[in-house]
């Protein structure tokens, strides 16, 4: 019997075929920098913990389709809602408000890094 007979979390992939590895530094998009800064601040103030974020990330049903910062930011959203720091409804209302007053054009996606990507 091997580990293959047990359900493994999407992060538990040691020994699996990895396929081609993307070794290009794609830099960070504007939103990724913002989201990462938020996660760092909340971690430093111990509002969220690394292990909680890892657990929330592993539980994402679409983990394998998401990119790194999509995973970490989705996990952050889950934990903040779980701990009652915000509600899903509050988050949606705020996102609608921001989107209405500040529609981020594509050019603002960290142009310096954009040049290096792909």
């Amino acid at each position, binding site marked *: 019997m091997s580990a293959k007979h047990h359900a493994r979390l999407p992060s538990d992939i040691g020994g699996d075929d990895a396929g081609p590895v993307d070794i290009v530094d794609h830099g960070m998009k504007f939103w990724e920098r913002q989201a990462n800064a938020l996660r760092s601040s909340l971690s430093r103030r111990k509002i969220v913990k*690394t292990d909680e974020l890892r657990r929330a990330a592993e539980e994402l049903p679409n983990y394998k389709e998401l990119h790194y910062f999509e995973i970490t930011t989705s996990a952050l959203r889950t934990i903040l809602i779980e701990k009652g720091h915000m509600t899903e409804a509050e988050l949606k209302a705020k996102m609608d408000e921001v989107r209405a007053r500040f529609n981020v054009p594509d050019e603002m996606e960290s142009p310096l890094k954009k040049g290096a990507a792909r």
Partner: protein
Amino acid sequence: MTAAGERAREKPQRPSTYAPAPGHRFNVGDHVLVKRRFPPGHRRTPSYIKGKTGTIERICGAFGNPEELAYGFDGEPKRVLYRVRFRQKDVWPEYQGAERDVIEIEIYEHWLERTHP
């Protein structure tokens, strides 16, 4: 002096502790087996190393239990973390590299059992 204590005294004790680890069960050089358990939830031991045997390379210290911290608990009591050294050939049956190649993984004490070479 217990048998375990004598074994520990005979072994070269490298200055290998990052943080205090009071009451640690294993010492540098001890042979350990990684438990073959597959409980659901956030676990810090990768599946590919379960059931494999290695040796304690160093005692890293005692830290809040990440398997509890992951669910918002305080992580107490702290768990001793070890760096465990495995021969690559023991981990991967088809391993083509050198005999001496090793992989080192940090594993918490509650995932380890004492075993013999």
